[in-house]
């Protein structure tokens, strides 16, 4: 995976992003049922840097493409005075954010391609859409989340995550 991450960061494109996404989804250690990103941020908010450091070792592979995970890591590096690590993770965050938001438009035809529920709510937040309801719907035989928001319905391809729950 290290090679593929390098390819993505040195040449970010829909293709190199999709390679990483497939690696995440097919990893035997993919655990989208865990709330590791929330755990990381709870530790950071409480100023528990050692705990955050421990949690950060559990982010990959599941949350490799999660912008909030990389933002948390950037913050953690910053708190530790590691400027280079902070800049690296901030760049990583910007790139995965861009390709996550470009992965769809939220319509039935082009749902956002996510790897966790956390990303569903990240996208809604990035679009400044206020979530009123969460529902699920089959589209073409695949399970999707549908968020009813003040900006209309937003579709997310959450089937792969749901299928991976133990």
């Amino acid at each position, binding site marked *: 995976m290290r090679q593929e991450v390098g390819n993505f960061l040195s040449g970010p494109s829909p293709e190199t992003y999709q390679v990483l996404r497939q690696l995440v989804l097919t990893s035997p250690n993919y655990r989208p*049922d865990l709330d590791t990103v929330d755990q990381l941020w709870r530790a950071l908010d409480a100023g528990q840097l050692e705990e955050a450091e421990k949690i950060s070792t559990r982010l990959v592979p599941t949350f490799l493409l999660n912008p909030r995970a990389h933002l948390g890591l950037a913050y953690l590096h910053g708190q530790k005075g590691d400027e280079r690590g902070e800049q690296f993770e901030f760049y990583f965050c910007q790139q995965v954010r861009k390709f996550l938001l470009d992965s769809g438009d939220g319509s039935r035809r082009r749902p956002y391609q996510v790897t966790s529920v956390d990303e569903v709510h990240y996208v809604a937040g990035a679009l400044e859409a206020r979530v009123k309801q969460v*529902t699920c*719907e089959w*589209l073409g*035989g695949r*399970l999707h989340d549908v968020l009813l928001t003040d900006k209309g319905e937003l579709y997310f391809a959450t089937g792969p995550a*749901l*299928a991976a729950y133990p």
Partner: protein
Amino acid sequence: MTPGYLLAFRLLPRLLHSDPARTRQALLQEELLRKLWVHAGLHLGVRELPPPPRLETFGEVLLITMPVPTEPPEAYFLAVIGDEPQVYTLEMGKDMLDDLPCTYFCGVTRDGHHNYGKGCLPEPGAFLARLAGIR
């Protein structure tokens, strides 16, 4: 909102109405119910979920026993009947006259939620008998 409410009134009904046969098959064969339960917990940020709902079949009725409700209008049971699914629930409620605890017999269609009046005891047999009475 609780995971029980999200599952019974939001996730499952739209899923059922979007593709009844696929949902029924996934409920019976792919542990969909347990996975949707985890999914509901993640959406709500619930860190410790109660045990998941249970699924049983009685003829063409899929009976889902939800975790014990903690507040109205959470459901005790959800029943799915038929290929063009009719979805019924037995919900925790309060009597509007005397404010005492009671149950309501309700349905969830594509158009939304419908209250069909006072329900039965929150027991599987009583709920199944009530379902038999409306068919």
